[in-house]
């Protein structure tokens, strides 16, 4: 599982590639939570190159989402393949998190 990051204006875009399973979830957690703890408030996680996620990965997404609640903060997901999207649907996470088809859509300003 590889993570790369880039900046787009105030957004931090974090791209995870490969698998987030019970073993690799720990490094995903470090990669995602460290910048948030260091003050990044607008974060997009791009899963376009992610093949797989298990509940260990969902736990990390939930941790990030809890920290990015409130005004001036945002946490969005994009690029989910059909299987990963289904995992989020079955778990109810699709209703809790902001999910977009692709990164460009995730970067577009949200109304309201």
């Amino acid at each position: 599982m590889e993570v790369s990051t880039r900046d787009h204006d105030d957004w931090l875009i974090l791209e995870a590639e490969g698998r987030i399973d019970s073993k690799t979830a720990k490094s995903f957690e470090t990669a995602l939570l460290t910048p948030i703890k260091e003050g990044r408030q607008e974060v997009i996680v791009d899963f376009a190159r992610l093949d797989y996620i298990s509940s260990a990965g969902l736990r990390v997404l939930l941790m990030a989402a809890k920290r990015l609640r409130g005004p001036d903060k945002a946490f969005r997901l994009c690029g989910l393949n059909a299987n990963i999207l289904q995992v989020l649907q079955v778990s109810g996470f699709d209703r809790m998190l902001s999910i977009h088809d692709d990164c460009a859509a995730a970067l577009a300003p949200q109304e309201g």
Partner: protein
Amino acid sequence: MSAFSLQLKNDLDEIETLMDQLNVYANEHDLNETVSFRLSLILDELVSNTISYGYADGRQGRIDIRMHQTGRHIEVLLKDDGDAFNPLEDSEVPDIDADIDDRDIGGLGVHFVREFSEKVAYQRLGLENTLTLSIRLTDE
């Protein structure tokens, strides 16, 4: 031959071996992506639960995974020599309607197992936990 047999130690490092071996199996048997995904998810969740919680005294243990295909299903048998634990009864039920502030992650693994497989059954046989389940070969 569609049989699969793998033994793992109760060590989280073994998850990588598990996932790699399942990928090989999926490729060898031309499983579609969704079936392969579900197979990996179910075993990842069950095996990592066993590794994390199944050996309260920290002893070394053994986890056995066997599979074969029938016409329309993959039949899975999972055995371990850990403490008596029935994941079907002993896990929390996740509140999938909770909002972010109230949500936690407990029970989600077993929830996935129930969602994506059929005929899930647990038995304690001697000093072993045994779980059997079936995964449909066509996605729903």
